[in-house]
């Protein structure tokens, strides 16, 4: 006994209950958001809604087989059922009798209804607490412990760590394939990467992640954890790696903020994190580079770039014409665009630095370089000329 106790490390020696809960939430959030990025990019966000509701039926069916609410087989059964749900939705929309959204909308309420009926008729002794299904039991996380390799830690934390590890490996190993098949599925198929295989790989992991997360945080927060951080990151980044990274940061931020707010106000932790996730996403909508508030700021900045474009346009328009020597002299440019002498000089110099414009010392005029002419054509396209 003494010998065993010496080897046993208890996580509670390092982290208090609150910290254990938060750590579990953060691990869950990261595991969800790295898959969530690919779900958002593939326009599959609402599948998480379908999954998080359908797996209840999976859990119920698995319970009829195992007859044990604590069996890990319950989670595995539910995970497989989640994949089946995705498959069923895919099959239904493939018939072209209904649109994909309709397929999602018809399948998951049916599965959820069947789960509710089965529980209320055949498993009445198993108390279905609606609040637990939807909100999970974050508070219970530190009370449900298990010992792994001499470490005692919350069961939910252990499961989520394993899921996180699997998800990280999957995304790291198949990063290139996931990227190309989400960006351009036709090209991916031609390049020898089966989009179907990757899709079901992604959905299998999504389903198992949803089941494990569902157990800890409930059906509603699962949706927020998958989609919210990924959606925020999608608006802010221009490369997939950054998107993954930023989504993880958002996820940690949402969980931490939501958790402590819920503790302080003594309200539902899952609910609060979902609310905070919605709010950060909404803030990103307002404040990102193409967002509404930024648009006002950018209009000012664009005006600057627009002036440079205007200068290139002027040079390009007059270059091949008879009055070129007159129009492209410094004085005429200054007058025709009605700019100050200094500003005209500064802007011309800037374009020369950027390699768009060159001085013709003989004729004392300015003209476009090869690169400048290319830019001239593109400006015309950009402004629809």
């Amino acid at each position: 006994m003494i010998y065993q106790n010496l080897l046993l490390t208890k996580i509670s020696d390092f982290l208090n209950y609150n910290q254990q809960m938060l750590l579990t939430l953060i691990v869950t959030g990261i595991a969800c958001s790295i898959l969530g990025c690919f779900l958002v990019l593939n326009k599959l966000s609402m599948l998480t809604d379908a999954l998080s509701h359908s797996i209840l039926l999976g859990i119920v069916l698995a319970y009829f087989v195992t007859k044990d609410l604590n069996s890990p087989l319950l989670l595995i059964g539910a995970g497989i059922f989640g994949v089946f749900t995705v498959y069923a939705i895919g099959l239904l929309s493939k018939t072209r009798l209904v649109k994909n959204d309709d397929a999602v909308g018809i399948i998951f309420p049916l599965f959820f209804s069947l789960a509710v009926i089965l529980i209320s008729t055949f498993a009445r002794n198993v108390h279905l607490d609606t609040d637990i299904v939807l909100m999970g039991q974050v508070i219970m996380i530190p009370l449900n412990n298990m010992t792994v390799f001499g470490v005692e830690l919350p069961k939910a934390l252990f499961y989520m760590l394993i899921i996180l590890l699997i998800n990280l490996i999957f995304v790291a190993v198949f990063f290139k394939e996931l990227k190309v098949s989400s960006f351009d599925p036709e090209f991916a198929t031609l390049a020898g990467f089966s989009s179907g295989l990757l899709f079901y790989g992604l959905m299998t992991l999504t389903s198992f992640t949803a089941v494990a997360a569902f157990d800890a945080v409930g059906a509603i927060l699962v949706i927020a954890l998958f989609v919210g951080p990924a959606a925020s990151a999608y608006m802010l980044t221009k490369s997939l790696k950054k998107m993954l990274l930023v989504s993880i940061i958002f996820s940690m931020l949402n969980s931490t903020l939501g958790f402590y707010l819920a503790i302080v106000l003594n309200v539902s932790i899952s609910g609060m994190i979902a609310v905070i996730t919605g709010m950060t996403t909404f803030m990103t909508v307002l404040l990102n580079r193409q967002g509404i508030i930024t648009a006002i700021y950018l209009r000012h900045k664009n005006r600057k770039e627009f002036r440079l474009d205007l200068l290139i346009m002027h040079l390009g328009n007059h270059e091949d014409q008879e009055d070129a020597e007159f129009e492209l002299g410094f004085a005429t440019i200054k007058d025709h665009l009605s700019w100050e002498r200094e500003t005209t000089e500064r802007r011309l110099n800037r374009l020369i630095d950027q390699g768009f414009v060159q001085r013709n010392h003989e004729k004392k005029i300015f003209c476009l370089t090869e690169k400048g002419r290319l830019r001239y054509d593109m400006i015309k396209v950009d402004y629809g000329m």
Partner: protein
Amino acid sequence: MLSVYLNKIFSLNFANLLNAIGLDFEILSSYTFIVVCLGTMILATVAGMVGTITVLKGQSLIGDAIGHSSYPGIIIAFMIGMSLDSVSLMIGAIISGTLAFIIIQFIDKNSKLNLDAVLAVILSAFFGLGMVLKSFIQGHPIYGKVPQGGLSNYIFGQAAFIRTIDVQLILAVAIPSLLILFLFYKEFKIFVFDEVYAKSIGLSSTLMYVLLVLITMSVIATGLKLVGAILISSFLIVPGITALQWSNRFSHVLIIAAIVGSFSAFVGTYISSVYAGMSTGPCIIVVMSGLAFISMFISPKGLLANWLRRRKYLNDLSKSLID
């Protein structure tokens, strides 16, 4: 009064007939069954017709998001009114559902996010807010004194508990909704099939959206007590999807959707009355979905017909290629 009257009719003519086809007359004539059945049938009829427009506009998942999003409105209405009065809770649901709808539209227009991502985020944020508020009043000394057990019913629905006042409320929403649908039938038809054309002939699509959202929102709000925030979207879209398997004509689709909705409501309510413990809402949805799948299989556009047509086509093709 109503039940006495119905009782008379049933006992005079149909009692033996019903028993003969396997329906339990005792249940059919009980007052509770009649009230619940009337409520769910009227609701399913209107929801099916209104929802058909949503399905045709390709927005079937918006109903799901709004259904979830109306939940916090119910809690807030309870917090303000300190009572479980059906009307005030319904108004709360309409306001929060509408707010969610406006935010969804706003984000959809002003960001590069896909609609489905927007729906997922808003749905979970609003429902999360409902959960936060509910946990807040549960632990609160002021609200603790007011009975609030009924609030949970709005998540999964508790059709068995509805009373005559709820049926009256459903009627109060159903009649104007159907009237609007009837009066603006032509406009809705154009709006559904060609929004651009509708605009070009001077039909304000904003007005049409406002009308549509208004009636959808009222139907959702009245339906919450019967089927709950999670499952109400089925009442909207499943009858429409089923009807679309059978016809391409707008008027026929609407009528079929209404029939599918009310029939499912009747059968579902009956089943849940016979087998104690079965919730009414889920039972109706299982019946509805069953009808939808059967339709997808056997309807003139369905899988069976498609398969036969394809086989014939391939036969003809191979014949013509050989020639």
